[in-house]
């Protein structure tokens, strides 16, 4: 195989390998090293056995990539004297180039040059300060918003992304997926601008902050497993039977924003019995705390159903995350204290409550005793007062009894006399008589009488029947 052909086969194999790498989102060298590919291109193995003789082709790689490598080799047509057998269309060739370019992810720093924005995306150039080198960049507007960055000519940036040729324009752009500011000045400016924006949107309003239960058991811890913050927090938490679920995140660099936002979502969606989320990291420069000053994290904290305590940096570091958080505990230790102090003081509180309870109950007993005594006294005094009055009445009655009886006797005599005066028997005795008609009624007037009517006469002694013969004075 001539050198030209093995070189071409090498290029083809590389394209295949890079495609696999980009599909499985790993760096190309992790699939197969260029060195291994070169040897394959030179030896052109035609079976798995031959392939396995090549250094770097272990059992695992053979089983993963063996068949596709052999297929590529068998499909490869060596060029004859005229090497332009395969004619690409422009589109095919740009695709081919992009397969190589896109996996070349990188983190690049530079100064922003020309900017031309559209509705949803922005083109800008990134250049070195001292050297004459320019990289054309492309970024979606929402990426800029998420990282809270407003592009301005002259600011220093670090950008992460990948190169790509835009087919319709034919030029190469670096597509920015993550970016951060460099330089204290622009960081401060960006911070102030975002603060203003979020304050206007009500993100810092005290009335919308969620309250945190006093006695917490379940904690969602969001921090890095590296660094002191995690240990500071756990050490100062004390031993009060906390249930800590730890979500490991990067707290610095361009991936920190995504990690932390995912962690907050994770607890809200998958571990919703967590009573509080603690977001913490140690101190650092304004640049290293950049993630905590991003709009994305501010929004995630704002939207979290579970209350969030922040302990970020040192006492005097105040990030946007701190301002949005429900409780800003300043440091990892401070956050631990907020959660553990109520438990630490619980014993004292219980003693106090017990004393209060005992005192209250004793007071209640005293009051009740007093009440009983006073009711008793009331009865005694009533009894005393009334018994005195009764005694008075009785003695008065006894003293005046003789006069009373005389008075009664006189009254009785008088009554008898009156009764005697009106007794009809007495009248009859005196010679009067009473006339009744046949129905037994006393006749008082002649007008009721008829000639021939029978009347009975009652005398003092005996009765007589008579007949009306004549009526006068009718």
């Amino acid at each position, binding site marked *: 195989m001539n050198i030209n052909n093995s070189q071409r086969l090498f290029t083809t194999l590389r394209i295949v390998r890079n495609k696999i790498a980009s599909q*499985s*989102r*790993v760096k190309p060298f992790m699939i197969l090293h260029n060195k291994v590919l070169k040897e394959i291109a030179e030896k052109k193995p035609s079976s798995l056995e031959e392939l396995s003789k090549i250094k770097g082709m272990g059992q695992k790689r053979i089983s993963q990539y063996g068949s596709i490598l052999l297929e590529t080799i068998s499909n490869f047509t060596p060029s004859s004297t005229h090497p332009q057998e395969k004619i690409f269309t422009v589109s095919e060739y740009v695709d081919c180039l992009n397969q190589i370019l896109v996996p070349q992810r990188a983190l690049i720093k530079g100064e922003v040059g020309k900017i031309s924005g559209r509705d949803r995306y922005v083109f800008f150039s990134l250049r070195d300060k001292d050297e004459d080198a320019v990289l054309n960049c492309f970024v979606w507007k929402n990426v800029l918003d998420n990282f809270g960055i407003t592009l301005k000519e002259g600011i220093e940036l670090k950008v992460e992304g990948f190169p790509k040729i835009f087919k319709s324009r034919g030029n190469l752009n670096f597509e920015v997926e993550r970016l951060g500011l460099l330089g204290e000045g622009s960081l401060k400016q960006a911070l102030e601008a975002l603060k203003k924006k979020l304050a206007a949107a009500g993100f810092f309003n005290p009335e919308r902050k969620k309250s945190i*239960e*006093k*006695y917490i*058991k379940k904690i969602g811890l969001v921090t890095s*497993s590296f660094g002191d913050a995690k240990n500071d927090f*756990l050490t100062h*938490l004390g*031993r*009060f*039977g*906390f*249930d*800590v*679920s*730890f*979500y*490991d*995140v*990067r707290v610095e660099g361009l*991936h920190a924003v995504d*990690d932390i936002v995912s*962690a907050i979502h*994770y607890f809200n969606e998958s*571990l919703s019995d967590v009573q509080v989320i603690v977001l913490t990291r140690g101190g650092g420069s304004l640049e290293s705390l950049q993630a905590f000053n991003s709009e994305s994290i501010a929004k995630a904290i704002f939207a979290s159903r579970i209350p969030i305590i922040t302990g970020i940096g040192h006492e005097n570091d105040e990030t946007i995350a701190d301002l949005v958080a429900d409780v800003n505990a300043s440091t990892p230790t401070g956050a631990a204290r907020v959660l553990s102090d109520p*438990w630490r003081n*619980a*014993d004292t*509180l*219980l003693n106090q*409550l*017990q004393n*209060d*309870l005992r005192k*209250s*109950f004793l*007071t*209640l*007993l005293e009051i*009740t005793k007093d009440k009983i005594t006073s009711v008793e006294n009331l009865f005694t005094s009533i009894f005393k007062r009334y018994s005195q009055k009764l005694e008075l009445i009785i003695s008065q009655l006894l003293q005046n009894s003789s006069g009373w009886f005389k008075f009664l006797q006189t009254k009785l005599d008088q009554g008898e006399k009156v009764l005697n005066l009106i007794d009809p028997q007495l009248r009859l005795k005196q010679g009067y008589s009473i006339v009744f008609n046949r129905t037994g009624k006393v006749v008082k007037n002649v007008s009721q009488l008829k000639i021939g009517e029978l009347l009975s006469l009652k005398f003092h002694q005996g009765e007589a029947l008579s007949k009306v013969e004549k009526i006068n004075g009718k």
Partner: protein
Amino acid sequence: MESKFDFSDAIKELEEISLWFQNEEIDLDEGLAKFKRGAALIKKCREHLKEVENQFTEVKKEIDIEKK
């Protein structure tokens, strides 16, 4: 006894009992019942404070080599 003891709720109830005793007119029977309940809650709270060891679970390890 409740199936699941909640320390916060117990403290809240104790504080309510404490407040109840501040009333002007209170009934002795009710007072006795509250006193008994309070004493039981305090006992349970103290028992609860004895269980101290923390639990630690790592729910997500964000060491993602592929992304780096």
